[in-house]
């Protein structure tokens, strides 16, 4: 603030640039340094104290496990990833469709939205075994459970987005003789896109949790199954390697959704 009010720093672009770099470097160095210190600390601790590998495998050992089991991890990871992406698309369509119905009809919205809110407070994770009873032990039960966990954020986001549409635009539409369906599809839905992306980001994490938990409860393949198997054999390094794969994948899906958000925002708002 002061640099702008007083002309002291104006004539020194080089100095300002240096401080800019330093500020950003500090912002990046501290978090990265913290992570490096944590990993190095785990490595040193595991080696010096000779902690049994079951309890705390040194990070280098996790890397070795990652390299050794690369093909198995790729196979199980690909299965899980396909299910997560499918679940995300299903819950996007379910969430948006429900939000459209709720927006078009006040009565239906009044009937169902309190139920959904209550369902949100109940620990839905307890339903995982029920989906096994309903849909068997295959991919369908994981998909169903993941959608059940993750459609709600999209529903709320879409409703918020529809309600945010400017009243002027809605009035213009009705003055031009548009039906409420036309207004919804051509005006409100595009305007709700930024909100939808916010919901989709929350949903992504929930989809991963849903699929992996479904695989914990019942599966014959997938990362969740791999983790449970490794835990049963007390192969902690393998569990951690599977978690690394899962985390990398989770972050990349999240990154993809965020990239889509940035693209849409750019196209909509310039």
């Amino acid at each position: 603030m002061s640099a702008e009010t007083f002309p002291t720093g104006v004539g020194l672009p080089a100095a300002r640039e240096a401080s800019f770099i330093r500020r950003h470097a500090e912002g990046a160095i501290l978090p990265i340094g913290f992570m490096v210190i944590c990993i190095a600390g785990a490595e040193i601790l595991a080696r010096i104290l000779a902690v049994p590998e079951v309890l705390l495998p040194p990070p280098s050992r996790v890397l070795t496990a990652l390299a050794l089991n690369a093909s198995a991890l790729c196979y199980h990871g690909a299965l899980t990833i396909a299910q997560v992406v499918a679940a995300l698309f299903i819950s996007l369509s379910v969430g948006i469709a429900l939000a459209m119905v709720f927006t078009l009809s006040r009565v239906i919205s009044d009937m169902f939205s309190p139920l959904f809110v209550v369902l949100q407070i109940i620990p839905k994770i307890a339903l995982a075994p029920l989906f096994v009873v309903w849909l068997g032990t295959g991919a369908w039960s994981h998909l169903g459970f993941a959608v059940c966990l993750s459609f709600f954020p999209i529903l709320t986001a879409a409703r918020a987005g529809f309600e945010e549409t400017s009243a002027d635009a809605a009035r213009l539409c009705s003055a031009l003789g548009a039906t409420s369906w036309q207004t919804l599809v051509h005006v409100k839905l595009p305007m709700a896109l930024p909100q939808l992306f916010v919901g989709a980001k929350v949903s992504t994490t929930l989809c991963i949790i849903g699929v992996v938990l479904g695989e914990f409860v019942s599966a014959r393949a997938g990362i969740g199954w791999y983790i449970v198997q490794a835990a049963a054999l007390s192969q902690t390094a393998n569990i951690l390697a599977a978690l690394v794969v899962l985390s990398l994948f989770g972050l990349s899906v999240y990154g993809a959704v965020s990239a889509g958000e940035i693209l849409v925002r750019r196209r909509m708002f310039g």
Partner: protein
Amino acid sequence: MLKRSSRAQRILLPLANCCGILLLWEYAILHNWINPLSLASPSAAVKVAVSSFGVLLPHILATTSETLMTFVLSSVGGILLGTLLMHWRMARRAVYPSIVMFQLLPKIALAPLFVVWFGVNVVSRLSFAGFISFFPIVLATLAGLRATDPLVLKLCSSLRASPAQMFWQVRLPYAVPLIMSGLKVGMTLAITGVIVSEFVTVQNGLGYIIVLASSNMQIDLLFAALGWVSVIGLALYGTVLLLERLILMRLGAPVTGALFQPGEVVP
């Protein structure tokens, strides 16, 4: 634009709808439209929930007490760490991005690891549930404490308020709404964590009953246990809501009291 519906409509319609769904459900099973092996009728579930109450009680108590212990531990720890991070700028800049990134990871997948670390016991369940519910409380506390109006802080420092006074009388009261919403998320995550680790440790608690009933195809017991889980979840969430109201009333703050905010969605 649809007009706002009346208050009666907003209360009566969901209730009527709920009763309608339950009746339809009961009727469908009575007439074998749905296979009774895959869906228990509400009346059967209630019957089992009441008749096997004696058997279920220890498990209900186990789940409830473990959830409460987790919640107390992680909320005290979370608020303390959040406060510490607010005051210690360097640590905040080092740790904050890691915590935020950590929130994106599917931490539930770590449940079996806690069994390897701590064994099949209460400690493993408490630490896993605490691990799940701790970080949102830290983030909410930090966000709340940093959300104080800067003008108010400036006024206080020009009135020569001590840092302690500023913390207790300005920052903390301002932070209460955000901290409480963090605690609501924390409570839901605490019960989620407890149930997931009961799934994994298969020792006691309602999560254990659910897994057991599903593998024995005792669908009515499964629904009875789900009913109890829902009752516990709603009761604990309601307690936090009540606490929020009490604290806000004590502070003389306006009770905005939305039951649910879109940002706090949890599994």
